[in-house]
């Protein structure tokens, strides 16, 4: 294991080459000490290079992490976003100096509108959950603007991402859980039971978190709208439907996307992401300010701040522009037809792995999946005491990033596999061989799997201790 940067520190050592600073007065008491590392440039370089080697990225290998769409992050995107004409720009600069950048933002919005069928998108939310929150505030503003103050509830399926119910609470709604059917779809009867004039909207991920398309979407849309509610599209799984079906046509009034999933921008070890929100015409007045506009007569791009019914601002400026530029480059290179092919190949890859694992692993929802699917290893657990987490850890020994485990919560001992479109048949075959081999190991040598990983730089971690004896700050421990 690599030690902490603080442990390299030697009094008087330094890396920077800044000029001497003059004596100045801050008008308030100055601090006596600041315990930051005192290290040389090569200390910093070697430390963070070593740390990087203890990480696993998409560039390191196959990353079949369900619901996360860990596709290849094109290098050209990184190069473009880093150009100083885009990266070294103060957000308070006048619009007329930002012609190139505003045009990129405007084009991004328009391309998203074409693919998903919306009248407008805001690019301001900085992540998927931030998009959910923004979308829910738009729903809230819409109902209140009509003078309808009774709508205090948002319905959320039990299979939804945890961010959905959490976003409801933050947006001032009460969330109500809707059950799933044995086939993974929304329980229409339960939905009907809960629909009334206190429902502001229904949040749905389609395909759902089991990777299955919601076949009853037309009926669901009718029911929700008949009750006066709005339909919200969680775009976490949009990689399955681009160019195939538009969420707006399916009846979704509001939609958020994850540019760091579907549009190839890197996840950065947890962020930054970007979560644009699309709306139909009637919800446009409530978008957060500012929005990017284009005046065709004077060929002028500008930020419009004057939206009297706007929900306000959700970010200090215009969102994660540096991320949006990467998604723009990606869409430019794919074109509309390319984005359709993205979804086709993503779905092909998922169904291929599913077909190859069928019979050896239990696939609880046995129908054509979309971009991901779920396997359950509850039988392995019962017979051999091997859990989904054990299989995940064993995959690391074979050089893979494990799939998502224990999500969705409605399937016990589950692994959720999402290969994405950027993986070749050879890569998928190699992964399937390993999965089949692990299934053999479970039967012949379950302890080998239970005690995995064997090749990682650390063993199984004591997560209980981490909670009971929190060590969160080097200077306090």
């Amino acid at each position, binding site marked *: 294991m690599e030690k902490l940067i603080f442990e390299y520190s030697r009094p008087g050592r330094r890396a920077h080459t800044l000029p001497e600073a003059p004596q100045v007065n801050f008008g308030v*008491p100055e601090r006596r000490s600041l315990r930051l590392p005192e290290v040389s*440039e090569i200390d910093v370089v070697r430390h963070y290079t070593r740390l990087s080697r203890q990480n696993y990225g998409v560039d390191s290998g196959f990353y079949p992490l369900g619901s996360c769409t860990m596709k290849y992050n094109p290098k050209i995107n990184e190069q473009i976003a880093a150009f100083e004409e885009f990266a*070294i720009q103060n957000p308070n600069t006048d619009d007329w*100096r930002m012609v190139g950048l505003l045009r990129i933002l405007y084009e991004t919005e328009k391309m998203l509108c074409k693919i998903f069928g919306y009248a407008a998108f805001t690019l301001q939310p900085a992540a998927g959950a931030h998009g959910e929150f923004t979308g829910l505030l738009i729903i809230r503003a819409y109902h209140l603007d009509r003078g309808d103050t009774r709508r205090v509830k948002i319905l959320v399926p039990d299979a939804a991402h945890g961010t959905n119910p959490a976003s409801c609470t933050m947006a001032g709604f009460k969330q109500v859980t809707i059950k799933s059917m044995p086939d993974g779809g929304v329980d229409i009867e339960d939905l009907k039971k809960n629909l009334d004039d206190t429902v502001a909207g229904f949040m749905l991920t389609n395909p759902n978190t089991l990777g299955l398309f919601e076949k009853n979407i037309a009926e669901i849309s009718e029911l929700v709208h008949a009750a006066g509610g709005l339909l919200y599209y969680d775009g976490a799984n949009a990689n399955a439907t681009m160019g195939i*079906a538009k969420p707006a046509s399916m009846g979704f009034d509001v939609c958020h996307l994850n540019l760091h999933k579907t549009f190839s921008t890197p996840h950065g070890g947890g962020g930054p992401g970007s979560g644009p929100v699309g709306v139909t015409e009637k919800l446009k007045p409530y978008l957060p300010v500012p929005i990017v506009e284009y005046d065709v007569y004077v060929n002028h791009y500008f930020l419009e701040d004057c939206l009297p019914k706007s929900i*306000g601002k959700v970010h*200090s400026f215009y969102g994660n522009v540096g991320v949006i530029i990467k998604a723009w480059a990606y869409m430019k290179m794919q074109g509309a037809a390319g984005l359709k092919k993205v979804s086709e190949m993503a779905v092909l*890859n998922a169904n291929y792995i599913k077909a190859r694992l069928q019979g050896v692993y239990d696939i609880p929802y046995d129908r054509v999946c979309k971009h991901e699917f779920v396997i359950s290893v509850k039988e392995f657990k019962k017979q051999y005491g091997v859990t989904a987490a054990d299989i995940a850890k064993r995959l690391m020994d074979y050089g893979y990033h494990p799939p998502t485990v224990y999500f969705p919560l409605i399937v016990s001992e589950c692994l959720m596999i999402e290969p994405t479109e950027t993986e070749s*048949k050879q890569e998928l075959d190699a992964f399937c061989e390993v999965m089949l081999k692990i299934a053999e190991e479970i039967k012949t040598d379950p302890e080998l799997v239970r005690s995995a990983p064997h090749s990682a730089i650390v063993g199984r971690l004591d997560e209980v201790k981490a909670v009971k004896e929190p060590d969160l700050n080097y200077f306090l421990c």
Partner: protein
Amino acid sequence: MAYFPHTETEVRQMLETIGVQSLEELFADVPEKYRKEKIEDFPALNEMELMAEVNEQRFQQNHFKYDHCFTGAGRYDHFIPAVVPQLAGRSEFYTAYTPYQPEISQGTLTAIYEFQSMICELTGMDVANASLYDGATALAEAVSMAVTATGRKEYVIANPLHPNYAQVLKTYLTPRNITAGEKIGQSTAAVIFVLPDYHGLISDWSQVLAEAKAAGALLIVCADPLLLSVIEPPQADIIVGEAQPLGLPMSYGGPALGFLAARQNYLRQMPGRIIGRTTDDRGNRPFVLTMQTREQHIRREKATSNICSNEALCALTATIYMSYMGASGLQTVARLCKANTDYAMQKLGSIPGFSVEPGEHFRDFVLHCPTDAREFRINYLHEDGIEAISLSDKDLLLSVTEKTLRESTENSSIDWIYGCLEREWKN
């Protein structure tokens, strides 16, 4: 169309293994009426065409570029050492997911633990989280924490806050009936003190701290991390802020880097990811995501926040910056910023007709103009290649950093604006 490794033969083989005839069959569960709809086309560019297009947009940007930038107000153009983007740009860092699998994520986990520790050291707080979207949303989350901790529903802004921050607070908190109050009192959950304030003014917080304490409210300080490197950190309950100045480019406002640090007793109300150190079965002391029962993927509607993706790569970047700079580097940057602010204020304030807002300022300062500031800015400053913000019809908000050139350097920006103001106003 790019990034597809499939050959036609392979697609056929794969369809066969799956047991379907065509790709369309894989979408048979999508109702036909949706599938039949036309998608409005836009063309695909190859990499060479894309670069030509990008260079056109770069040209557009350069065409209207200013020579001397005095714009700050929330994002600052600090010097970024070459080491910082080079290391943060290693793809093992930037192409990784959230470190849910600690065995193959020790790189990110270790760096974020270092980030939390450095933020705690800068703020004088006990615990910090792994980042939030930006300073404005960090402040909103802090008020949320104060509301939970006190059971009260009002916040008071004690000194001038960036108007965008105030708007974000309003958007975030109004739906939960948390509102801005005028006076600190028994219904105040949190008092917000900004350091420096929107105008760059550094003021003493002790009075506000005493008032907040007396009312049983929490003191939230929204502070600049560079300023914190030189001054005694306030005795606050929660300290938040925007860490973009720590090695991140302005990027037209984002990605940014919100930080949030608090006293130990508010740990359970904290939003976002937290990384802790533990042990493994081999005697190592590795790092792991911890205290997760606060978070949305476990606690769902009862979570402390909905945040999931944060600004991890920006936190890593700031950590590398702070490691490289050390205390002496951060403090040198802060002092150079202050010296340039002092110099600019003294110089511009000395021009007859002009004056500056009094007090110690850090980076941003207000210049009172003898004429309509908005018109002056557009008609004269822009002509002279100077970019600045007009606050009102009287005031300009100017900003400098350690990069701003001053006297006895060629192309000195401060001397340039001095010369322009003096000349334009005389005419």
